[in-house]
């Protein structure tokens, strides 16, 4: 009787201890990970805090309504959106080819696609000038044949942003395509769908979340683009002066203006990213 009670008691104790221990053991975060993680977070967040602290709140409304700031913001949002559209138009097919078509040199092509990621954007801008500039490989011909010049135009801004941002889209979409189950496409093919129909009706809906994530990433990169834009498209208010360029020039004379412009860019980009995330990417 006593023995039995002891046993049950011990059993109960054991169970209780296990209950106590298990979630703790599972939930315990090693300091070796927690401390660098905390440092990493601080490193990313602290500069933003520093920016917000220095915002001149009293003169904020007046600075925000300055025509130059709004013009630059509108141009930035417009060009980043157009650049994302161009990237979708060219980048999604490129990602599909890389993920679904076997061809010699595919790995080389994939590496080439990622080059703009590591290339300093200023070099990207010079490279664009050497191709699309007045004396460039294609630019001379475009100018002579169609009278089209791209440098120093809003279209040039879009081109520079696309060059820098497209790899983000291609990589995201290609990843989504590789992760997607290609048996659905095969099933569509056995049911008589052409490869194009399968692409538009099966593949695209299947990778929609990855596509949305890639597009958002691409848009955000285009919005923040500086180096390639100022090198290829120059800097002129209302035509090629995007928000990052306006921030840089404001920094030359007026730190507070630069901070306000940065804050606007920050709020707009975070706002749009959050809105898109809720709408499109809740399942991702």
């Amino acid at each position: 009787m006593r023995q039995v009670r002891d046993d049950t008691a011990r059993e109960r104790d054991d169970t209780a201890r296990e209950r106590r221990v298990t979630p703790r053991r599972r939930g315990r975060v090693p300091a070796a990970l927690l401390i660098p993680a905390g440092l990493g977070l601080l490193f990313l967040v602290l500069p933003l805090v520093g920016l917000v602290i220095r915002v001149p709140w009293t003169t904020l409304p007046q600075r925000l309504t300055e025509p130059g700031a709004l013009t630059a913001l509108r141009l930035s949002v417009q060009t980043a959106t157009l650049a994302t559209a161009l990237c979708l138009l060219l980048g999604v097919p490129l990602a599909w080819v890389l993920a679904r078509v076997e061809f010699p040199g595919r790995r080389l092509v994939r590496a080439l696609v990622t080059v703009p990621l590591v290339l300093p954007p200023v070099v990207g801008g010079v490279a664009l000038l050497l191709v699309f500039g007045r004396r460039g490989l294609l630019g001379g011909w475009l100018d002579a044949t169609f009278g089209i010049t791209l440098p120093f135009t809003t279209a040039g801004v879009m081109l520079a942003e696309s060059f820098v941002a497209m790899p983000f889209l291609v990589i995201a979409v290609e990843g989504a395509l590789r992760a997607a189950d290609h048996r659905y496409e095969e099933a569509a093919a056995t049911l008589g769908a052409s490869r194009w129909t399968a692409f538009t009706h099966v593949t695209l809906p299947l990778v929609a979340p990855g596509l949305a994530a890639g597009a958002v990433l691409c848009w955000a990169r285009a919005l923040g683009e500086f180096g390639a834009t100022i090198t290829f498209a120059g800097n002129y208010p209302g035509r090629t002066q995007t928000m990052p360029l306006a921030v840089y020039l404001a920094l030359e004379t007026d730190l507070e203006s630069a901070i306000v412009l940065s804050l606007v860019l920050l709020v707009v980009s975070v706002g749009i990213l959050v809105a898109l995330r809720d709408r499109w990417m809740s399942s991702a």
Partner: protein
Amino acid sequence: MSARATRTAMAVVMALTVAGCGAGDDRATDGSGDGRVTGTVTVFAAASLTESFRRIGEDFEAANPGSAVTLNVAGSSALANQINQGAPADVFASAAPANMATVTEAGNADGTPATFARNQLVIAVPRGNPGGVTGLADLSRPGVKVARCADQVPCGAAARTALDTAGVALTPVTLEQDVRGALAKVKLGEVDAAVVYRSDVRAASADVTAVEFPESARAVNDYPIVALKDAPNPAGARAFVAYVRSEPAQAVLAEAGFQAP
């Protein structure tokens, strides 16, 4: 858990503070003291000084064994901002007194700035002068693409003064962030002309030729230089400023197209 989180956060903050204190102190002892200049001298110089200060820096290193000159070149206004935000610079050489004033008014200069050179504007055109530019008035001709510096940087302010003096209403295709940006557009042949300094054209004479214009005499830039109050290497800073005003350095500047003060 929340206590531990607090403790971790505190540890993180402390680690950051300690790391922040350690950085940058190691150079402070270099060069200070017995008059011999050693250690690194960090010079923040206007973009238009790039080539001449590189040479002057090398000459300075040769004259002061054990010293090393580190150049940071950018638009003068960007440099002035960096200095006022606490960048560890020893010397500031500006392309205009206005940007120097930003630094002196913030109380960051050690002593009074001295003018060490002057620079005059010219029109830079690509080789062959495809736009047929012969003077300031040509810049406002339709079809002539012009780059100039933004008003915020000295070369832009000077260009504006010169254009206003001449009564030329100019719509450039781009307002560049510094004079070298404007010059690069000429080198690449993307614009027909850019308003830059004479010294910049001299530095790029292989691809670019200069068209002088009389109105530039009204917009001559004085270049001031000063040692900085919070210089990590104060002795080095003072020695470098003195060297820039000495005969050999002035010869280098003259050869680069600058005028004597």
